[in-house]
């Protein structure tokens, strides 16, 4: 899923300080599952904004609404009748949400309520970890099913680098060296020799480096 984290309240307050009718817009997709942008968090953020206003002796209206998804135009459409009632919208979906909203409602003031972090999963409840960098050409099968592009700090394809010490990455003792894990895994699998082969420079053309990406599926296009 796409993993996001709520922005510091102060930052959000600063964004919306000049607005008095605010819509907090949640998303039932990934951000619900990672407990940051669902109806629950929408309510919490709305309440927080109201408390802040009350403290500063300010009268504001905050309402919350949660869309099925903020990455599909049909759902974005659902609020077409209400959006004009607000002078600011705080989207707590991933980075896609605020953009789809801005594109659909050019006149609306849309603010991001969360910081989109990465594509990953919950390694345990309340702890998420990055797994995919969306490079556009998956290679994990070469590395014992683990992705060095997303999980090696240098995205090395012929790692590990000299900075790997007792299983940790040189950037931090809290970061596992994925290459250390890959090597162990492949050794256990008896496939170590595969790692001895030189991996040639990868084409980043399918990745972000190849420019903004879009996917067209002719058989689906209407």
């Amino acid at each position, binding site marked *: 899923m796409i993993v996001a984290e709520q922005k510091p309240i102060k930052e959000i307050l600063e964004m919306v300080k000049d607005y008095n009718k605010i819509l907090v817009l949640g998303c039932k997709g990934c951000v619900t599952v990672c407990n940051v942008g669902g109806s629950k968090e929408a309510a919490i953020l709305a309440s927080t904004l109201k408390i802040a206003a009350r403290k500063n002796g300010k009268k504001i209206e905050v309402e919350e609404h949660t869309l099925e998804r903020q990455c599909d135009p049909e759902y974005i459409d659902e609020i077409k009748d209400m959006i004009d009632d607000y002078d600011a919208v705080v989207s707590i979906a991933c980075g896609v949400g605020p953009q789809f909203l801005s594109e659909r409602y050019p006149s609306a003031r849309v603010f991001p309520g969360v910081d989109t972090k990465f594509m990953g999963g919950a390694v345990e409840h309340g702890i998420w970890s990055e797994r995919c960098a969306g490079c556009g050409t998956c290679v994990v099968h070469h590395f014992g099913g683990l992705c060095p592009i997303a999980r090696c700090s240098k995205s090395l394809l012929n790692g590990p680098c000299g900075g790997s010490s007792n299983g940790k990455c040189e950037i931090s003792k809290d970061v596992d060296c994925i290459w250390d894990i890959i090597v162990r895994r492949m050794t256990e699998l008896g496939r170590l020799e595969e790692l001895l082969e030189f991996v040639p*420079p*990868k*084409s*980043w*053309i399918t*990745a972000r*480096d*190849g*420019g903004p990406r879009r996917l067209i599926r002719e058989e689906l296009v209407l």
Partner: protein
Amino acid sequence: MSEYKSGSNLEKVLKAGHFAFTGECGPPQGANVEHLKEKAAHLKGCVDAVNVTDNQTAVVRMSSWAASLVLLQEGLEPNFQMVCRDRNRLAIQSDILGVYAHGIRNMLCLSGDHQRFGNHPEAKNVFDIDSMQLIYTVKTMRDEGTFLNGQDIDVPPKLFIGAASNPFAEPFEFRVYRLAKKIAAGADFIQTQCIYNMDRFREFMKRAVDMGLHEKCYILAGVTPMKSVGMARYMAKQVPGMDVPASLIKRLQGAGKGKVAGEGIKFAIEQIEEFKEMEGVAGVHLMAIEWEHRVPEISELAGMLPRPKV
């Protein structure tokens, strides 16, 4: 402490109020220094400074700083070009220190063409910072004497900071504001994209002058003589942000067999003549791509010679 920011020849020429004339020279796609020297020889004495391109159109060439040093040895003043595509902020700053240490005094700051256009489309690009930020970086290093992280530099590099501007890219209205932004960021001089649509350029300059930009920095108009109709068509169609009026293509076609190149040069000369008079234009940047040997002739005809000694 001199009144000069860098003390480069180009800077002196412009400050002295002369109509500047800069040329361009692409490094070889190899280590063929002799070929480079030969191209440079054509420019010697004809221009105040020579732009040395940096993996232009994302095609790998000898590194621009190395080529610039060669020019320096040959007694020309290089205008060292740097793109943001291939370096992060560490490499950028260290290269700036390096080129300055070796006597380079002009630097043109560019974002760089996306590698997709070049001969290594599968490369990973950097774009750690953009051209605007690059200008700011060089200025910070020169005027503040610090790196981007605020740390002091032991002997800061004093470079004459150039930036590019394309009057013809979309959205047209925004272009002049972007120019202003670059100047604000620290550009001392601007070299524009090569100009063919004179009306558009006049409009552009008018706006720039209205904003007083010409007083804040030196704007050099970009000129590239058309060698052939094919080149004109290619430029019109293939090169992004290039504006080649159909009228020009017609005119070239009209020139008749074997005379197209001459017509191209003739048009270029006319342009230069107009630029000399145009308010806010401080000079011309001549981009005779793979045509260096014709530069002396063009300079002559454009009445650019001899170049002033400052």
